[in-house]
């Protein structure tokens, strides 16, 4: 079960490369590794924290106010993350402030809570959240690395237009090679 949740998050149902969710911060922040790492940590904290909170109180949340409750928890944790970033990593905060604040509206997190954390047990949703967070962080870090070093050769790579090009090419490459990879490792096949 835990193995499945991790493989799902990292590969089979990766939020960035398969579900294509949370692309706004992904495209905007990934122009260098440092920013990518900062946003990964903040998003992972909010995703895992809110999943844990919601799944542990899910039986007490009435269906008709579930969305306000979810958003309240996510917004609270996002604000906490913003405060700590502002206090202990101010240089990074100045660079990524806007995109940390809009974690609140990240459909990756709300989607995860609506479909998993509000329905499954605490440990299941915890592992699923860790898997999803790792998948999103991996995508951010890979893009951040590619764009930071590609910029040395092609300056466009660090600009917004370059973000779309790099993401498009990366997805195309991933789709091409994923068939070969799943042939070799059947566990990675999408179900």
């Amino acid at each position: 079960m835990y193995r499945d949740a991790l493989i799902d998050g990292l590969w089979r149902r990766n939020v960035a490369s398969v579900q294509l969710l949370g692309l706004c911060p992904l495209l905007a922040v990934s122009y260098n590794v440092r920013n990518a790492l900062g946003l990964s940590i903040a998003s992972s904290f909010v995703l895992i924290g809110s999943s844990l909170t919601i799944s542990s109180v899910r039986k007490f949340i009435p269906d008709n106010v579930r969305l306000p409750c979810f958003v309240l928890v996510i917004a609270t944790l996002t604000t906490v993350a913003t405060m700590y970033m502002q206090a202990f990593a101010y240089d990074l905060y100045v660079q990524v402030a806007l995109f940390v604040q809009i974690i609140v509206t990240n459909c990756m997190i709300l989607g995860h809570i609506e479909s998993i954390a509000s329905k499954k047990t605490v440990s299941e949703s915890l592992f699923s959240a860790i898997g999803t967070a790792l998948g999103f962080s991996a995508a951010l870090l890979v893009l951040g690395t590619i764009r930071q070093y590609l910029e040395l050769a092609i300056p466009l790579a660090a600009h917004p237009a370059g973000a779309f090009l790099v993401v498009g090419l990366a997805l195309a490459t991933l789709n091409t090679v994923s068939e070969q990879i799943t042939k070799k490792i059947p566990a990675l096949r999408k179900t």
Partner: protein
Amino acid sequence: MKSVLTFTLLCIASASLLALANVHTNSYIQQNIEKQELARLEGLVDELDRELLCEQGIELFEVERRGYGGEMYVVVAIQDGSVLGVRVVRHSETPGFDEVLSPDDWIGRFAVEELEGIDAVTRATVTTSAVLLAVEDAMRLYESGLGECIETP
């Protein structure tokens, strides 16, 4: 009734968490903001020492003006009736549109050009107009002798 109760409890829990985090981080955040404000003044004058500035006849004015995203705090350095330089130390303008406020962009022109020749910038009209108004305010303050370097008889 149950939904109201649940939501209220959740709100109380969230508010307490935020209050705790605020108590823990507030002093660090204020320090960081002050450090940044000082860093933004760099290059405006040689030394941020009041007596030294007065000796050179430089007056610093901090003026508040409403920009696009809220209050902006503009520091204007005036020497012998002309603007020596302008810096915005604190603002909440939209990221990306605030690049006109960096010293090697639009706001740097105050250091080299005549005030009359500097116009607002389209795409950041509200921001740049607010800075221009702030500079006018500062000039008015200077002319009415409200600077810090008032000679004591």
